[in-house]
């Protein structure tokens, strides 16, 4: 069990301890996952974090990877939302990792939205919770906010229909509570809350402190020319000071680690995680230039997703951040651009 989780998320780092725990995890997964053993065959323990092996994020869309050891009690399968058209990633959760991941996300999010509990409004349908066998990334994200909630309220009658938002419930809560927490996927928050918000609700929310937390990316909104400034401005219109919009980046393949955007526009790495940027052609680690993000954490005990090479582009930004959350930070630049498939096969 990692002791790094006992430290403040954005305090001083202990790189030696992180490296030792990652090496231990690599050994653990090599002993319990045959596929991982084959992939990492011949690799020696890392002497530097740059030497830590990774799995390509695409493997989780194509293989069910799990670590079969006596202390792993398999849980539900977490599925991504499959926005790239390549199928959904699936990550097998387990009890111990889930406990660590819950502690992790709570510690990170508390640093951005405060620890107090308030009603949590989720832009999803309660039926999504009852899905058999697996859990969607959307629900997992909402559940990560449960420690900050005094009652969870699922507002959509139909998870796929932003227009099914129950505004009466919002009105009831706004009239009683001075502080609310709202979570939704980025595009749903825009379509359901901003575009669908009745004037009566806007009046009722005037003077209420609302924290909006969203994830899921900007692709759909950018296609509609809705950018971050406008998005935040519209959400916060008329609300009490102290209201804020928190956009976080996270992957199902790194469940438990979220990277909210700080007040200065950067994403900070908690001390129990690490981010490297690699050049795609050489796999060399680079700093200050865009490259593929490699994300790591010490929480994944039940499957080898402790170190993942993503297809997201990012750039490490050296130096102290004005927000005060330490110097390990990066900019998220978007997905690796893909060209269209060329060829005649399988159309």
């Amino acid at each position, binding site marked *: 069990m990692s002791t790094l989780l006992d430290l403040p998320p954005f305090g001083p780092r202990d790189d030696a301890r992180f490296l030792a725990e990652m090496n231990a995890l690599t050994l653990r997964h090599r002993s319990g996952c045959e*596929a*991982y053993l*084959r*992939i990492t*065959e011949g690799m020696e323990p890392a002497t530097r974090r740059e030497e830590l092996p990774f*799995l*390509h994020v*695409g*493997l989780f869309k*194509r*293989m069910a990877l799990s670590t079969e050891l006596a202390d792993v009690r398999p849980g539900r399968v977490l599925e991504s939302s499959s926005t790239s058209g390549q199928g959904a990633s699936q990550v097998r959760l387990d009890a111990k990792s889930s406990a660590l991941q819950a502690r992790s996300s709570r510690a990170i999010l508390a640093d951005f939205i405060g620890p107090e509990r308030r009603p949590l409004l989720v832009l999803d349908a309660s039926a999504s919770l009852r899905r058999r066998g697996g859990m969607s990334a959307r629900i997992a994200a909402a559940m990560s906010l449960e420690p900050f909630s005094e009652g969870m309220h699922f507002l959509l009658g139909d998870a796929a229909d932003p227009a099914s938002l129950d505004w009466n419930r919002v009105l009831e809560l706004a009239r009683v509570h001075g502080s609310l927490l709202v979570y939704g996927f980025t595009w749903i928050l825009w379509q359901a809350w901003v575009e669908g918000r009745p004037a009566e609700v806007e009046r009722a929310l005037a003077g209420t402190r609302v924290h909006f937390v969203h994830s899921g990316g900007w692709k759909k909104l950018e296609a509609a020319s809705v950018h971050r400034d406008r998005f935040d401005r519209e959400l916060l219109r008329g609300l009490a000071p102290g209201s804020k919009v928190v956009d976080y980046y996270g992957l199902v393949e790194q469940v438990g680690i979220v990277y909210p955007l700080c007040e200065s526009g950067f994403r900070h790495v908690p001390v129990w995680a690490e981010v490297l940027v690699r050049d*795609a*052609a*050489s*796999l060399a680690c680079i700093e200050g230039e865009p490259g*593929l993000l490699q994300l790591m954490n010490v929480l994944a005990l039940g499957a080898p997703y402790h170190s993942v*090479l993503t*297809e997201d*582009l990012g750039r490490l930004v050296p130096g102290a951040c004005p927000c005060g959350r330490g110097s390990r930070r990066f900019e998220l630049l978007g997905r*690796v*651009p*893909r*060209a*269209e*498939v*060329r*060829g*005649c*096969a*399988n*159309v």
Partner: protein
Amino acid sequence: MSDSRVLFDGPSGRVAVSFPFDLDALIADWDRLRVPMARHLPDAFARDEWAYLITFLESSQLLRVFTETFGTRADPGAKPVPVAALFQPLSSLAVWLPNNVSLLGPLTTILLSLTGAPLRLKGGSKSEDLTAAFLDFAREHLPADGPLARHLDAAVRHEVFDRSDPRNAAFAAEAALRIVFGSDEAVAAVEALPHPTGSTTVSFRDRRSEAWLDPEALDETVLRTLLAVFAVYGQAGCTSPRRVVLLGSDEEGARQLAGDLAATWPSVVKRSPAPHESSSAILGAQWARALGWSSVRAPGNAAVFAAGSLDCEEFDVPLGLSIVAASEEQAIDSLPANIQTIGHALSVSRGDALPARLAARGVERFVPLARMHHFGPVWDGIEFWRRSFRRIEVGR
């Protein structure tokens, strides 16, 4: 209707083929288009694709389509010989082009333009349409009063819409011949549309190809040819090798070949890979290893080559090539059901038995490696181009 009649001497005697244009002048126009093509590369095309088109449009290449189909061109000034059959272009053709970005669209359009039949083309709605880009280029650079420009204007229409559009039915309702590139589902949907009695559908579905090599034939030239053929479309080309079979060798031989291919790649494929291509190769290498293959990446993570046994489960990334060693029997037994082309480099003469055995297994083309992508009037074993004509028997 016809502006010209061309005579050929074939196996069944002399035939006359009618066209609504001067055939030689039309072919000359296609050939002349190669000059501006050599100077301009439209954004839609990869350099390799454009180069292939330039070669394809050479007049002797286009004339070969006629000689392969009808026979030797007859000398019109020689002593007259009774005509045994007349060929006329069908009343109209409709083509559902591939949804992927594919050179098959422009190539099919060029060949079908030579028939003189009115042609309606449905472009893929989900991707960049090379046919539209090619036709735009042709119309811009051809002499407006030339036979080809006039024919393209009068008889060739290209539209882009999806499979639910009512224009699909309009296309099918008029066409004497429907040519469909698509999935089994897409082909079935077109076949089900109301169509003229007696009309025909020709379909080109998802097919796979392989490269078969004898170790003794493996030299630098074969390696480079294999890479050149593979690099054009990777696994997305129906005539691209999805698998290399090293006949009569073993896993060590397969591993050696994988390493040689990876090492040779940069000297054959000069361009640097895009980041998503490198990412894909990294994924492919790991996926292959997880499945029991032994994988190696080309420099720059430009491609991945994996050696393994016939029992290894397949992996599928755009520039990923698997290599297995097998006996001839094993190679035949493990052919996929939708095999199309086998490109070969064989040193030992296997006689006529091998092609016949492969034909029995559904192989449509057994050609030297360098000809794997060669497109012509017969495709997937179907004489689609010849079927764009009606044949009228002439008896005396």
